[in-house]
């Protein structure tokens, strides 16, 4: 999987790493059990402090996206389906994005079509990679 990090962007680098790995897992670019580079390897390759990568890995571990063990390092963890995948936080974030789009002038139909296209994009990629 290829990470594309905007080094001068407003989003912190650790957040970009976390987001792209989540996207990679969701779209099947990263498979269950696939090892990730070590914190030092990735930090050296990007040219950032190891703490930045460590922060991203800690976030991913807390979210259950990866597991870290001493022998094998960081790996993509098996997906554990939650009873309620769309919790309150999900609703808040999705509502905020929809509100922002509406304020920018998007009509309901356009927005629905756009979101459906994005959903298709993620799920289809996953099917293709499987």
């Amino acid at each position, binding site marked *: *999987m*290829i*990470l*594309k*990090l*905007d*080094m*001068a962007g407003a989003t912190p680098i650790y957040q970009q790493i976390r987001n792209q790995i989540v996207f990679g897992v969701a779209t099947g670019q*990263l498979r269950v059990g696939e*090892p*990730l*580079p070590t914190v030092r*390897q*990735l930090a*050296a*390759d*990007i*040219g*950032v*402090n190891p703490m930045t990568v460590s922060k991203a890995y800690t976030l991913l571990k807390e979210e259950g996206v990866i597991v870290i063990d001493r022998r094998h390092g960081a790996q993509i963890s098996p997906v554990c389906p939650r009873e309620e995948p769309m919790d309150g936080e999900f609703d808040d974030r999705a509502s905020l994005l929809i509100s922002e789009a509406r304020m920018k002038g998007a009509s309901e139909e356009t927005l629905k079509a756009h979101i459906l296209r994005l959903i298709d994009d993620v799920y289809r990629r996953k099917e293709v990679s499987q």
Partner: protein
Amino acid sequence: MILLLGMVLWLVFGVMAASSLLFRHYHDSQILGITLSRAHARQPEVQRVVRSFQRACYLVLALSALASGVLLIPVVQRYAEMSLLVLVMLNLLANWCVISHFQGELRQIKEKNQWTYSRKKIMTVDLSVTREKGRSGVSPFWVWLFLPLSFAPMAVLLLHPALRQRCPLGMSLIGPLCQLLAIFLYYQMRNRHVRVPAEKTEQNLQLARREERINSLCATWCALAMLVFWGLFNLAMLYAPGGFLVVVPVAVLTISLLWIARWQQKKTREAEDALLGTVSEEEENLQEDSSTWKWGCYHNPDDPRVFVPKRIAGIGWTINIGRPAGKAVGLGTLALIAAVISFVAYSGSQDYQITARGDQVMIDAAMYDMTIERDQVDAVSVIDQLPSGTRTNGYGGMEKSYGHFYFDGYGACMIYVYNNAGSFIVMRLKGTDPGYVIVNGQTGAETQALYQTLSGWLAE
């Protein structure tokens, strides 16, 4: 002496020309430090600029070699060290002007054809490539092996204390320190970031493996060149006093490093051509990086690294002057260069002042002042020629020499002499460090007068 200075000067000119010429090859998506895609770099108008640049570099080299002829003029020879510095600076300036001029021409071509690339600082990392880092390079065994071998001159000096007069023990630590630097370079070269020019991981992996192999091999060769240099340098210091042969290991090291840099560029280019021939310009993900380079240095306050790889030759490192530590290192280096230039200029312009007053002879010389008590002096005599020997710590110019020297048959000496005066006064002291002090005047007559003064002072 003038031949030695000439050799040093031509070596410097040659290195400058070769370094500038390395600049002309397509490397790290750049020609002459200007970002170009692989397709754009092959355009006839770009190649025309590259050929003109090559001719200009040869012209600067030829003119510099001609200008070095001024060292044959007797008046200039009196200020040979300063003249050498001026000639080197002029050569540096000329090369810089040539590079800047042709960079401007390439920018114009880019503007005219509207070859624009992204200005966003996007760092692309292939996780599979990052995970494989360190697996395809040459084993670090060799660079670690060279480290103990670099202690060989120190072992020889410890076993033969007499040789320490020609080559101080402390100096033998320089080799191992340089080897440690070479080990650092090895790991940096092996782990350096490889571009991710393709969307396909397999292509990126192949390129990364090839580049890691090339880079680690170059770093190993650099360490070997350093070891060979160190061995030859010590041989020259111990068995060829006079310093003339010291130029040979320096030339061997310099030429080796330039050859390694050229080989690395060539092999990387070949690997990219073979593996990325079909990669489109969009996929190449080119980015203008001129915004992170300022005054020829890397300037990026957002990058936490202080030392970053150079963008031109691919070998070697530069500092990030956008960071406070980088600024400190840069200013420190400039201060050091200024101090060396000032020392050479000051030393070359100052005359010695030797005065006998009361029970003391006082010698006033830049950084090597000395006071000799009357009861320290055993005898004073005059010789016509300086004995052969080596400088331990001091200044050795065309016109004069002073500081700590080691002479055959005399041992450790302090000298304050005008090299071409023809006669020298030798004061034998009661101790052994130094055992002798050698002085003279600017002419034979001045030396004779000084000898009379010192003899009179000693007889009082």
